[in-house]
Structure formats: C-alpha cells, structure tokens
C-alpha cells in the first residue's frame, strides 16, 4: 500500500512534468488559443493579493486576473451575500464556516488539483509531524473536507471546501531593546502581553477571531484564568476574560488596537508600543527599518492560521477551468517561494525549494541561522547575517500550535464583549 502510493505519486509527478513541458511548448499560454482570455476575479486580502503575484500568474497562465483586495470582514460579507461577484476567494480558514453555510462556495475537486498529493499533512491529518499537537479551535483539517451530508469534516472525500496554500503561525512581536531586564532570562510567553511591565505599551490586533485568542492565551499564560477549550470559549469564560481585560484597558494597559499591518508597523515605529500582536510581514519590515523587533516563539504555543482559496458557487465553465489553473499555479513553486520571503509557508514547500536560495530555504523553512543577508520582496534586506527565525523550523513551529484562528459558536457574543472592551 505504501509502495503503491509512492509509485502513484511518482507517476503523477512525471505526468505533471509532462503537462508543464506541454505548456512550455505551447508558449505557456494554454488559454490564449482561439478565444479571448478568460477572466478570473479574485476577492481577498492584501496578504495574498499582491501585484507581483498577479503579473506573474497572468504571464504564466495567459489568463486575465482581477484582484479585489479588501478588509477581512468586508470581503467576507461581500462573498457571502453575492457569490456571483467573484470567482476565487482568498482568506483565512475562519471564514470557511460562514461561506460554506451560505452556499457562497462550491466544493473543489481534489483530482483537478495537480499537486494534491504533495500537499503536506497539516490540512490532511492536522499534524505536520506525528508528534505535533493539534491546536484548539477550527484546525484546518477539521473543516476542509466536504462530507456526504454537506457538512465540513475531517474525513477525506475527494472534495474540499478550500485549497490549502498559504499559512503560518503568529504570535506577538516585541522590541528587544525595550524588554525589561528580568524578562530577558525568561522564555517568551503570551503572558507578556498582559504583563504590567509593558503597561501602556501594548497593542492588540482589532479582530476578535484573532486578537481574542492572543488575549485568551495571555490571560491563561499569566494564570489569570483557564479555559475549558480555548478554541471554543464559553459565554461565561468570555465574561470573565473581558471583565479582566476591561479592567486593564481602563488602567490604560492597552495603547491601541491595530487594524492593518502598516498600522502595526507604525505603532512600533513611533515607539507607541513595545509589544503587540503581529503578523510576519510587519516584523520583516521593522527589521528592515532597523527596529529590533523579535517575533516571539511563546512557550504556550502559537496561534495558527491557514489561508484558504475557495471557488465561488457561481463560477462555471471556462472561468472555473481558469480558476483551477490559478489554484494549481499557486502550488507550482514560484508563488510559494515569493511568499516564503515574507515569512509565510506554502502547503507543498518542496515545490518552492528550487525557487529559493539555499540560505533562504535554510532560514525560512529550516529555521537555521542565515549565512547571508536575505532580502524581502521589496528588495530591502529584512534578515541580516546570523539571524535565526524564532520558533525554529517549519515543522517545529507547526508542532506547537496552541490555537487556530476560529469563529467560535460564541462569536456574536464575543463581538459584543469586544466592543465593550475597546470602547471602555
């Protein structure tokens, strides 16, 4: 069985190479023959809707791509209400439940995903390595498979609600130069976010599906309270957590709540905060600007997130074919390498390895100290010689996911509590 699978996948790989070769001979433009180029409209966020990617994809595929980047909530709302308004939807796994429930997306056929077999086990078994712990909340493998009953589950059916591609683990970043002396000897902990030594210098991402977990992990790490299931916090637990947070807010522990990556950069740059929830690109950018920000590897584990690429329920025909081509392109290596330089991982990393220098691969994926300065996508040096990625290799980081970004059953309630919190 094992042999067969291996053999099978090898055959597929050979086949894929053949397909690639035929593309090359056809001038890389499989859709350009005869008809007008098909248009693929992509709705999503700035994380993946980047102009270099669009250009490269259009060049490689000979299709038209229209990117409509927007804020998380806005794009979700748009997608849920009007599936005809997009072909592909790119966001995080926490939006899947909403989209699926409102029939905005259609199942994706794994047989049309050229590199399905190369996709690693994170979205298949939930464990990147056998010893990995499965994070709390909506772990991607729990909501990827479309069950016979139309519900999303962890059992493989050949139909998936989203294409697994970009993902990462987030934590918080802090200015190492501002780290209080007595914390330096301690291992990094979510609890620092609520540490009184940082009072007034803390910022949290303004999104309950993300920031709430940062704060919950912090409260738990600090020993203020415990959660039965941190991926499904109950109303009572929320009440307790927020009463604590509101108290801290009124003590002006929190300096701000950022809504975008540039804003989080600005907070740190202006020295408004010393520690905050962060996304990987912000850390790269700040390091590029010589701000000694370290992306923490908290001992309690990371907050994981998984990107999703969903196919609109309204997309059919040539646009659907083109959408599949685009999905396959994303896993074809170059895009994975491109986003690797921003600190993101791709679901089939080996396909991107040839597109990365050895040093890049070692730094970004293997978590080794770099032998040379590495440049970000903007051409600026974001990693200087000798730096090592916090949290170690891809595997060791994903072995330690404490919780996934999740839309909990108490989501609506959490929104109310969030409002109370930030307006208090």
């Amino acid at each position, binding site marked *: 069985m094992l042999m067969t699978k291996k053999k099978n996948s090898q055959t597929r790989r050979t086949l894929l190479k053949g397909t690639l070769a035929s593309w090359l001979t056809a001038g890389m433009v499989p859709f350009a023959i005869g008809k007008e180029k098909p248009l693929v409209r992509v709705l999503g966020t700035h994380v993946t809707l980047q102009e270099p990617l669009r250009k490269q994809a259009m060049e490689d595929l000979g299709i038209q791509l229209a990117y409509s980047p927007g804020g998380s909530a806005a794009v979700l709302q748009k997608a849920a209400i009007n599936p005809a308004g997009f072909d592909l939807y790119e966001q995080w796994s926490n939006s899947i439940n909403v989209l699926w429930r409102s029939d905005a997306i259609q199942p994706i056929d794994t047989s049309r995903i050229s590199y399905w077999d190369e996709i690693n086990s994170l979205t298949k078994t939930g464990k990147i390595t056998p010893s990995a712990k499965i994070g709390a909340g909506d772990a991607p493998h729990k909501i990827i498979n479309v069950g016979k009953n139309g519900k999303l589950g962890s059992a493989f059916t050949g139909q998936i609600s989203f294409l697994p591609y970009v993902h990462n683990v987030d934590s918080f970043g802090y200015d190492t130069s501002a780290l209080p002396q007595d914390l330096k000897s301690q291992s990094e902990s979510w609890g620092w976010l609520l540490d009184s030594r940082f009072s007034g210098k803390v910022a949290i991402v303004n999104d309950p599906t993300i920031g709430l977990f940062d704060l919950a992990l912090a409260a738990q790490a600090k020993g203020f309270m415990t959660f039965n299931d941190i991926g499904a916090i109950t109303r009572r637990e929320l009440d307790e957590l927020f009463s604590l947070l509101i108290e801290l807010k009124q003590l002006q522990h929190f300096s701000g709540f950022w809504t975008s990556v540039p804003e989080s950069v600005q907070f740190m740059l202006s020295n408004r905060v010393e520690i905050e929830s962060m996304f990987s690109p912000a850390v790269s950018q700040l390091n590029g600007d010589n701000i000694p920000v370290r992306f923490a590897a908290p001992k309690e584990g990371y907050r994981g997130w998984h990107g999703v690429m969903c196919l609109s329920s309204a997309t059919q025909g040539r646009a659907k074919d083109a959408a599949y081509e685009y999905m396959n392109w994303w896993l074809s290596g170059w895009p994975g390498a491109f986003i690797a330089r921003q600190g993101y991982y791709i679901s089939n990393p080996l396909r991107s390895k040839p597109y990365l220098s050895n040093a890049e691969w070692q730094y970004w994926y293997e978590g080794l100290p770099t032998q040379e300065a590495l440049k970000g996508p903007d051409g600026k040096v974001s990693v200087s010689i000798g730096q090592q990625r916090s949290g170690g290799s891809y595997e060791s980081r994903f072995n330690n996911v404490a919780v996934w970004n999740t839309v909990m059953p108490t989501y609506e309630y959490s929104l109310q509590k969030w409002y109370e919190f*930030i307006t208090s």
Partner: protein
Amino acid sequence: MFHSIRLQLILVLIVMVALILVQGFLGRANEQVLTEGMNNTRQAVIDVGLVGELERDILDLQRNVLIFKETASQSAVTRFERLMISITDKIDSLENSTLSSAYNYSDDDTLVRMRSHLVAYKENFRQVVDARHERNQLINVQGFFVLDELNDLLAQAAEETLLPEQAITKLRLQTAKMENMALRYLNSPSQEAANQFQDAVYEVQSMLQHETNATLQSMSQQVDALNSRFLQLAQITQNNLFLVNVVMAGSANEFLFLSRELADLVNSQTNAVNRKTQKAAQEARLNGEIYSVIAIVLAMAFAIFTVKRILGPIRSITDVFNRLADGDDVEVLPELRRKDEIGKLARAASVFKEKNAQTKKLLEEAQTLNRQQEKLNSELAESKLKAERATASKSMFLANMSHEIRTPLNGIIGLMELAHQQPMSAMLKDYLDKASYSSQILLNVINDILDFSKIEAGKLELEKVSFSVHSILDNLLAVTSLRAQEKNLSVRLVVDPSLPPRLIGDPLRLSQILMNLCTNAVKFTQQGEITIDIKSLLNQKGDNVVLRIEVLDTGIGMTQGQIDRIFQPFTQADGSTNRKFGGSGLGLTIVKQLTELMSGKLRVSSKPDDGTTFVVTLPMGVTLGQKGILASTPSLPQGSAYFSDKALLPPQYMALLNSKAVCQPLEALKKDVGVPPAILVEIPTYSIFKALLPTLTVYERQGCVVGIVMETQTGQLQEKVFNQWHGPVLLHPFTPSQFKRFVHRLTGTVDSDAIPEVAESSTMLDGHILLVEDNNINQVVTGEMLSSLGLTFDIAEDGLQAVTKLTNAPVYDLVLMDVQMPVMDGYEATKQIRNKGFSDLPIIGLSANAMKEDRLQALDLGMTDYLTKPLKRGALAAMLRRFLSTEVNMHAIQTVRKIE
C-alpha cells in the same frame, strides 16, 4: 587719530545712536515675541478647545451609531453626518492652525491618520446603515417568517395524510424550532441559535427530501427560502456586529487615542509657547535694563567728558581771546599742549596773540606803504596820460604814413611813367615796366598794411568793376618771374583755356591775392619750380565763374602746426622764418582775409621739405557771352612737325594746337625732316638751344616757321635767346596772350583779339591848368604829365595861393587840387573858390587817401571829381579828357618830345 574732538564726539554719538538702535531693535523684537506669544497662546487655546471638541464629537458619533444600531433612527444618521462635517472642519482648522508646524503632526501623521479613520468610520457606518436597511427588507418587507404558511401546509398534509402522523408532529416540532431559533437569533445573535436553526432546517429537508407531493415540495421550498433568508440575515447581522463592535469601535478608539495624543501635543506645545514667551519677555526686560544702564552710564560719561574736556577749556580760551581782543597782554596760554581742536584753538589763540603784535607792526608799515602808493599812483596817472598821447601820435603817424610814403613813391612812379613815354628798346621798356610795376607793388605793400587795418576794422570795401584777366596775369608774371629769376627758379603759369578774359570783381584785390601767394612761394622755395594753375568753372547761366587758383611750390614746406599759424597776422611759420626770409608776415593773413571777404575759400596743404600748395577758390562775376581766353588759338598747319625730349607746353595748351604731328626727339632734328610748314621745338636748356641753333636757322632759311618753347631762363640768357633767335619764341613763364601771340606767329596768322598797344599816347589835349601841389617832386611829375598831354599849367604851393591866383587871374580851364597841404588844405581852398563864384570851374581833387568816403567828402565840398595819388598818366588823361577838348596832333607829340 582720535586726538580730534570732532571724531571723539562723532564716536560718542555713534555709540549712543547704536545703543538707541539696539534698544529699539530689542524693544521691537520683544514686542514681536510677545505678540507672537500672545497669538500663539490664543491659537493654542483655540486648538486645545478644538481638540476637546473633537473628542466630544467622536463620543457623540459613537453614541449616535449605537442609537442607530438600536433604533435605526433616521435622525441618528442625520446627526452622524453633521458630526462628521463638524469633525472634518475641526481637523481642517487644526491643520491650518498657525501652530500646526509647531505641533509636528507630520511626525506620525496624526491628522492624516485621524482623517483616514474618519473616512473608514463614515464608510463603515454607511455599510451599517445599508445593512440595517437590508435587514429590515428581509424581515418586514419580504415576509421573513413563513410559519403560518408552513403550518397550513402541514395541516393540509395531515388532512391529506401525505405523511404519517408521527412525521407531521416531528415536522411541526422542527418548524417551531426553526421559528424559535430564528427569533432567538434575531433577539440575541449567537452561533448556537444559528446552528440549531440549521439543524432544524436540515431535519425538515431530510424528511421532505424524497417526497414528490406538491404540498410537501412547496413546504420544502418554503423552508429553503427561509433558510436562505436566515443565512442572509445571519451574515448581515454578523457583519454589522463586526463592523460596529470591532471595526468602527476600533476606529473610534484609535481616533480618540489620536485626539488625546493631539491634545497632549497641543497642550505641551502651548506650554512650550508660554514658557518661551515668558522667557523671551524676561530676557527682553533684562536686556532692556542692561542697555538702559549702559546708556545712562555712557550719557553721564559723555556729559562729564564734554564739560571737562571741551566746555571748560573753551571757556578759558574764550577769556584769553576776549582779553586779546581788548588788547590786553596775555602771558600764559592754557591748553597749548593738547592735540585736539582745543589744542588747535589754544594754538590759534597763541597765533592770534602773535598776529596781534604783527598787526600793529603791519599797520605802521601799511601806512608808510600807503603814502608811497599814493605817490606812485599820481606818477602812474601821469604816465598814462603820456601813453595816451603816444598812442594818439602813433595813430597820427599811421594816418600820415600813406601820405608821407606815397608822396616820394608817386614821384618814382610818375617819373617812370614819363620815362615810359620815351622811345626805347623793348628790353628797356620791359625793365621799366617791371620797375614801374614793382613800385606799384611797393605801394601796394604799404596799402597792405592799411588794408589790413581796414579789413580788421571791417572798413575795406570791394570794388566791382569789369577787368581784364590778361593784365592781371601779365603783372603777376612780371613780378613773380623777376623774383624767381633771382633764385633761378622755374615758374609756370597754366591757365584754363576756357577762362573768360574779362571778369567782374575787384582786380586789385585779386592780384593782391595772387601776388601774395606767388611771392610767398618764391620766398620759401630755394630750388625747383613754382606752378600757378588757374582753372575756372562757369555756372549754367554764364554770369558767374569760380576761379580755382593753385599755387604749388617745391619749397621748404610746413608742419601742421606751422600751417595753423601762418594765417595769423604778423606771424610766420616759425620764429626763424623772419630771419631767413624776411617779410612783414602780413601777406597770407591778407590773402585769407581778402579771400573770405570775396566769399572764397583758402586751403593749404604742405609737408615739411615737400613743398606747399595753396588753393584759393573765388567766385567772380563775368560778362555774358565771352569766348575762352585761348578760344581763338589757331591750329598748327597740316604737316607741322613737333620735336621734344620733355613736354614743356601744358597738355591742354598742346590740345589747342590741334597738332597731329607725332612727337619726335630733338635728335631727330639733325636728320632731314623735310620742309614742314611749321616746326614746334621744345628746348629745356640754353646749351641745347645753342647746339640746335644752327640746325634751326637752316630750317628757318628753308622757309619753315620754327617756334621754340623754352624753360625759364635768367634775364641774361633770355636776352641772348632773343638776340640769337628772331623767330617765334616762348619762354616760361608765359601768359595766355603770349602763348597766343606765339602760335599766331608760328602759324603766320593775325590775332584779331589783340589789344592795340599804343592807343592813347597820341591823343593830345588843349587847356591851361592850375596845379595846386605843395610837394616839389609831385609838382614836377604831375607837371610833366600835363605837359606830355599838351597842356600848360601854373603851380600854386598851397590852397591860399591857389585862391589868390584864381582870383587875380581867372584864366584856368581846370584846377588840380591836392587835398593835404600846409597853410590851407584843398577842401578849404575849393570851398573858397566856389564861394568866389567859380561854380563851373572843374576842380579835380588829388589825394593819397584811397577811401571812398574821402571822395564823397571831396564832392560834398564842391570838388568836381577826385583822383587818387600816385597819379597815373592814363587815369589823369582819362579824367582830363572829360573836361578838356581833344586835339589830335602828331606834331604836338613831336614837340613835346623835343622839349624833353
């Protein structure tokens, strides 16, 4: 340098002014700082107020969002929009605040970020409003709940037993659950309610999935529609919750943070401004005080300085002066050692003191001198008187000049005139002519001097009479060649053949000009030649001609500086000229003056050692219809021969001869030249003449007329030439008439234009004359003239004698009355004669005064006419002929000659 009080005072003044300026400047700066501070403070207060209002507005905004969320009130929306405008305005005012630069907003883009949050907030609120509207549509308009319909359908299904009872019951339960959950979700949105709603929907649908009955299918469709509406509602609700609770709350929070930051910024800036203003004010006050103290100290120092250093000393020196002025003796002078103005004043006082003493001395001296002066003055007055007398006698002398010089000159001229009457050789006649003419020139020189003074006085008047060019040229050459011969200079005269022979103008002045130029040329030329070139240009009417007289010499020449001087009276080209060349230095001055008087122009060009050229252009009148001076020159006969080594005749003269003969060298004469009707030979020197003479004589004997043209020869050589050659000969210089005569002789023709040479000599007069003349020589000269005219005369020595003689024996046909005489002058005598009844007796005045007014005076006083001395025979004869009868008697002439 600073020893001068003036400088010290100026320095002090400058320091004071500078202090005042600094103080003024400081005051101004302080005022500015204070004003600015006040303005800034005012602005800061306004800004602080604005920021406070901003915060309040944001809170109000949030309040209205909540109100809308709860009540969907339209007024909340309106209020929201107004607040938005108000907030935007406030941000604008803050941005435009005069202090905005001080706030350094740009550091972290506070205002920009506020704006962007505001924009996002507004946009989100719009979405909230829209979503609320959609929710209302879903619930109220479209009929969200369909439970009644479902129940009806269920009742119908139960009636029709389409499903078993149990299933119906279950379906009822599930539909009730759906309603329940939907209501629960509406009331309090939660995932749990939504999930339970969906579970119920799933249950119902799974039960109805395979039913084909229309009622059940309709039910299934209703449930599907309900589910879809619910999902939409849930999505809207969630999104709205997210927008309001997360996004908008976040924006507002951030906005409030920023506005608080802004408030801090504005406050701290305000404080800074205040502090700065206070500090500036303090500094200003301190500076002002320091400067005031300095100014006061300086002013006092200045006052002390003034009193001690200036006023005191001045007072003491003033005392000294006062005492000195009073004549007191001052022994010691103060402040003498000082180097400034006071010191100078002191020194001045000492000088004053010394001067005082000196003045006394001087006064005494002056008094002495005064007395001497008075004496000198009286002597001076005496001298002046003497000088005036001397001037008067000089004037007298000058006035008498003409008379005194002319009288003997008249004698000479008269005697020469008489000599002229005697038969003599042509040579002698020529010499006599020349001597006579020279005398005339001498007279003219004297006249020059008088003329000059007349011209200077503007009293010279030009004659305008018709005159012959021939005589002018004859005279000119006579004088010039005579002088040139002395130096062996060649002289050439070239006259434009078309020059009219008679011109109208002042002949005397014209010849004066010519003569002066030529004598001048001869005078300053040692060797070479003098060329006189006269050209004429007739105007179109033919009544005016412009003479262009060029006198060119090969003499010593002049520099430009000398040229500039030569026309000044009594001046020559340089001081040594007078020694070398003599002369009055008046000639050229008169030429220039005369030329200008005659409306002509005089130009001179010269270079040292390269000769001088004078060019005079003179306008002259001309009588109409004249032929040119050489107009009727005959052509040489056909076949005439022409021999010359060097052309001696001017080309224009040659052209007149109309000769077609080829010029052959003189050598050719020695060969057989045949027998041409005329031979023209040009011979440069006497030696060649001598060599050629035998040959030429041979030709002459053969019947050829041989005409010789020769270069200027000295008098003796001329004589020799004339003696050895009796054929036509022409020696340079020659006049046009001489040339013409020569050609006539050469061609054997007769000159019809020739003026009869002796015309009047044989005309004799008849009458008895009383000659009143005091000068013995003049008595002889005039007497001889009268005798030679066949007249008899008596002599009266003065006017009185004349009157007496006439009264005693009134036998005279005419009286010649000299004007200036002792005892009784001519005027007085005439008056008395007329008074005695001799009113018809012609009385002709004789006077050396050539001026017109003399003549007028003479006529006024009763004289019949007037003659100017020296008397010329021709003029006298012409005059007498008017009053006396003519008697042509050759015998009488003979008689007269015998008497001589």
